[in-house]
């Protein structure tokens, strides 16, 4: 089915481990985004990408790495997970221009 999918939906990892969250979209949207959602903070932008091989930092990029070698994929890597990175992570995509952003179902990450 077309759309934007995130995997895994749930992940528990230990402090210090590297973990990668996957995001795949089938619309060939130019723009992709990673947000984290925390109680009391709403949604905060981590990184975004305007096209393949073009990425830029958002509001809270520290401790995260992204790559975009293909238009349809935008993985987010936590290089060395910390408890403060326990959150729900949402990937989104947009055609850009005057179009809406579509969000995935989210990945709930717990760092213990």
């Amino acid at each position: 089915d077309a759309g934007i999918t995130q995997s895994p939906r749930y992940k528990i990892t230990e402090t210090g481990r590297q973990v990668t969250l996957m995001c795949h979209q089938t619309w060939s949207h130019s723009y992709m985004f990673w947000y984290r959602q925390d109680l009391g903070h709403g949604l905060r932008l981590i990184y975004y990408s305007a096209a393949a091989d073009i990425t830029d930092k958002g509001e809270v990029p520290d401790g995260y790495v992204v790559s975009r070698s293909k238009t349809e994929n935008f993985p987010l890597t936590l290089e060395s997970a910390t408890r403060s990175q326990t959150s729900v992570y949402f990937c989104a995509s947009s055609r850009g221009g005057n179009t809406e952003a579509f969000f995935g179902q989210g990945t709930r990450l717990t760092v213990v």
Partner: protein
Amino acid sequence: QQQVKQSPQSLIVQKGGISIINCAYENTAFDYFPWYQQFPGKGPALLIAIRPDVSEKKEGRFTISFNKSAKQFSLHIMDSQPGDSATYFCAASNRRAGSYQLTFGKGTKLSVIP
């Protein structure tokens, strides 16, 4: 610095009543103001959006009111229904800058009671 301030944090409304959620922004370069609706366990989904060249936009029971001089915008849900119970986020972006990234408010949890 929070660029989009949303209130209230939570809201309880009787079925059939009007739900009102307010947002204020600081960055005068913002030129696109969407509202997103999020149900538990789901990602946010676009509900309605407005640009600063109009003062009001209505889609069914949902209306955005926009006050450019006050740098404020609000969502009105008329005839609120239990199915409207969700978390609502206002957002803003500067599309002229070309980044299309959204800055979100902290969200309002709406509960519509029968």
